[in-house]
């Protein structure tokens, strides 16, 4: 790996900040898996942004000939309600991505906070927090989703995007917290943390300047994992029928296609495109997740050994 790539050669403050933003991206591109995943994800984001402006028809209009197979004017045909499938797919990309990313970002923040404070706190607090993390890991997420969702349905409300994100964060943050806790535990025992403590650096300083920096690839990897959970969770919420089914996203598209038995009546152009797009999106998240794992864990790398491993994490994340 070319470490010179990351060396900061600029002197003025502005470009230094710029470098800080660019650096994680450069790290991403040093790994093949992450590179492919990044390219797919970037394509998805562009697709999602364009979809907000350039969808050929209004995705909510019910005015076309019903169940039309793909043609030039309707690239992916129409639904049994007479909606244009391509417009729905195009327009629904952004909400799907946004839910995934929001769950990824919020969930990762919570898991960093919980995981690092548990790993860096006293033994007793560590045990208590570990217990809480395990409870959230054990409870099957679908059960909580269905319980909350049905209570919302009971008061004639469906889960909009915000409650959906909230539920998915509640059920999805614990995976990351567990990883961060065990990594922090192993880092906190290292010499460089001890020397920082002896110098007199504050706890917060150590957490932000040393630990977060050391586990940065793991944080990014975890973000992609949680975002994957979020996107998959959105499709579950919609599939169970507790979401707001008038919203257009890939989850609701699947819900309507499945509930009208598109797979039995041969309307493949209705059910396959959203399935395919979700799979590709998931695939890119998984690639990025594992790519970042390889970046953070040098022993998994393709060309490694013999170079110095100082400051790298080569511990197992398990404890």
């Amino acid at each position, binding site marked *: 790996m070319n470490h010179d790539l990351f060396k900061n050669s600029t002197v003025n403050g502005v470009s230094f900040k710029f470098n800080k933003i660019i650096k994680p991206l450069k790290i991403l591109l040093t790994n093949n898996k992450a590179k492919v995943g990044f390219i797919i994800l970037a394509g998805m984001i562009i697709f999602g942004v364009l979809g907000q402006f350039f969808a050929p028809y209004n995705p909510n209009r019910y005015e076309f000939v019903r169940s039309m197979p793909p043609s030039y004017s309707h690239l992916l045909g129409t639904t049994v309600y007479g909606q244009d499938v391509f417009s729905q797919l195009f327009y629904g990309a952004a909400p799907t991505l946004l839910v995934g990313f929001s769950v990824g970002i919020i969930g990762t923040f919570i898991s960093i906070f919980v995981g690092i404070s548990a790993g860096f706190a006293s033994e007793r607090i560590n045990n208590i927090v570990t217990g809480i993390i395990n409870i959230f890991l*054990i409870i099957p997420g679908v059960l909580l989703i269905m319980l909350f969702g049905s209570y919302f349905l009971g008061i004639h409300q469906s889960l909009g995007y915000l409650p959906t994100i909230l539920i998915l964060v509640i059920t999805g943050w614990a995976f990351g917290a567990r990883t961060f806790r065990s990594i922090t535990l192993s880092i906190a025992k290292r010499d460089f943390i001890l020397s920082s403590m002896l110098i007199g650096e504050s706890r917060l300083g150590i957490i932000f300047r040393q630990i977060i920096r050391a586990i940065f690839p793991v944080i990014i990897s975890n973000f992609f994992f949680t975002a994957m959970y979020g996107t998959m969770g959105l499709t579950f919420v919609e599939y169970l029928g507790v979401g707001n089914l008038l919203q257009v996203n890939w989850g609701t598209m699947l819900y309507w296609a499945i509930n009208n038995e598109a797979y039995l009546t041969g309307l493949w152009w209705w*059910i396959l495109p959203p399935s395919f797009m979700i799979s590709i999106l998931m695939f890119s998240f998984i690639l990025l997740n594992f790519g970042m794992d390889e970046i953070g864990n040098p022993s998994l790398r393709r060309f490694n050994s013999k170079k110095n491993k100082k400051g790298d994490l080569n511990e197992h994340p398990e404890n």
Partner: protein
Amino acid sequence: MIPYKYIFKKSIAFLVVLYGAITLNFLLPRLLPGNPAEIVYLAIIKQGGGSINPIYVHQLESEYGISNAPMYSQYFQYLIDLLHGNLGVSIAFFPDPVSSILAGALPWTLYLVITSIVISFFIGNRLGRYAGINRNTFKDLFVDLFSMFMASFPAFVLAFIMLDIFSVDSGIFPLGGAYSSSVNIGFNLPFIISAVYHSFLPILTIILTSIGGWVLGMRNNIIPNVNSDFITFSQNLGLKKEQINRIAYRNAILPNLTGFSMSIGLSVSGVIIEESIFSYPGVGLYMITAIGSLDYPLLQGIFLMVIISVLVGNLIVDILYGFFDPRIKQEGE
């Protein structure tokens, strides 16, 4: 050689979490917006033709807190009902108590979960070992891509595709149910064959969607082991390649075993969804009905029973882990 201390610690944790789950089940309907009790109340009056059996009123009071009794006495009433196995009366399947519905459904769900998770764990770890040992070769790439692709497919979409291909179009597998109506329920060969035949497709689908995590996890666990010093040492001793791989594998499987107990919850989520698609008479099928008809007593019963099953599963796996991991064994003695 039994790690008593470890088992004791795990059992205490189990009881604490179990108590937490039971309390959560009590608090949820009281904390959430809206008043589920009112809905349940009206639904039961409608079902009962205007009049309401005092027994149900009593149950509603204990479950949803519509009585004016203080919270703590409601809570004790709830705990006592629970100890008697009294989970209320279902609305969707009206006169049936929730506990009898669950008694019929839960065994099928447990059967699906246990079978699929064990097979998936076993095959996944072997595949991961294969990929990790042959890393950076074409075989590794193929296994990795396959696992990633399977993990990226929404489980229920795969289930629908399987159902369409193997049941609807070709009729190789049945469309639903857990056994055919012509066999006698009990421990006899035709019943077992019928049950296995009916569960084949759901189990295959769950395995396909859950195997990716094991493969990739195992691969990433075994690679650092293959590179480590004790493997170099074994090589220098002149051990055969197969023996060396086995050493690396045994070392790498420990983190995956901890993952096993964590994955039970995820697995149950998957199974619940698959059951509703394959019309398999487990709790998932009842759950979809319960959501549709806002059957809160049934939903809460499912919630509680599934969590208890998952917790018990976790406890068993954790205790077994204590026997596998020599570090815990030593600590516990």
